[in-house]
């Protein structure tokens, strides 16, 4: 993934969130075979931005090599939810949205 593409993706996702007023976003990175520090920061940045827009973000499908790289780069993404696969990711989002519902009740 090129840097420019990454930045594009970031703004695209945020705009989609705003447009659809999405309450949750699942980011599937299973095709990402390796990352560098830029992508790593972009991923955690995206999660933070979405959180500010009151949207839950769950990253799924991370590959072992990517996880190892992120750890070695010191980009542990605290506060970013991750799940092993789509199914678990959806479960996690549903739980988050559930607690959200309580905000509005």
């Amino acid at each position, binding site marked *: 993934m090129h840097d420019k593409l990454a930045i594009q993706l970031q703004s695209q996702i945020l705009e989609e969130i705003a447009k659809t007023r999405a309450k949750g976003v699942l980011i599937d990175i299973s095709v990402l075979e390796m990352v560098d520090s830029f992508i790593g920061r972009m991923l955690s940045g995206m999660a933070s931005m979405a959180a500010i827009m009151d949207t839950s973000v769950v990253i*799924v499908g991370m590959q072992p090599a990517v996880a*190892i790289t992120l*750890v070695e780069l010191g980009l542990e*993404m605290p506060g970013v939810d991750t799940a092993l696969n789509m199914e678990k*990711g959806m*479960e996690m989002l549903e739980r988050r949205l559930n607690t959200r519902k309580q905000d509005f009740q």
Partner: protein
Amino acid sequence: MSEILNVQNAKERIDRIEDILASVAAGDMDARIQSDIEDDFSGIEAAIDLLINDLTEELRQREKMQKELENKLSKIQEQQKTILQQQEDLLELSSPVSKVWDNILILPVIGTLDSQRTQVMMENLLQKIVDTGCTISILDITGVPTVDTQVANHLFKTVTAARLLGAECIISGISPAIAQTIVHLGIDLSSIRTKATLQDAMIFAMKQNRRADEIRTLSNLAMPNDNVD
């Protein structure tokens, strides 16, 4: 008064000595003068023969030792090849990851850990987590007496990487020596979950499973399919 030397066939015998010495120099180990004549010259001839004896004996010994050394060398090279092969095999066999229960993986580690082995273990475990979708894994190091700072770092990285994937990695069976190394490294302990024994780790893991199931059921109850608006 000068003595008169009694030497028979002087010219012949001098030629013979030269021939024999030349043969020995050329490599003939068996060339000897072996004169039958007994006179003032035979002393030298006998002495030369003895000298040749000693020399050829030395040479034979040296050849023998050379051959022995070469044999030993090739034996050692064979053994080295075997050791390398066994090391590879050991690396592959040494740390199998098994799914012991619903959603729970176990990686029992036995023996000394070096940096390379730990790296392989780490990649193996993370891949297994992704392949099986198990969110709980137990890294049991009861069988590991000590670790160096590199290995301790790898272990910490494994736990952190597992969390990034969306799973949890519990370390069980930490010895006092290893506990000291971890603290000396200044590793943030709040981020590693540890249990004293494999048993404790299993009990904890199964409780987690049950808790997760309960949450899932509650979640489904609280949110029946009415979110289509």
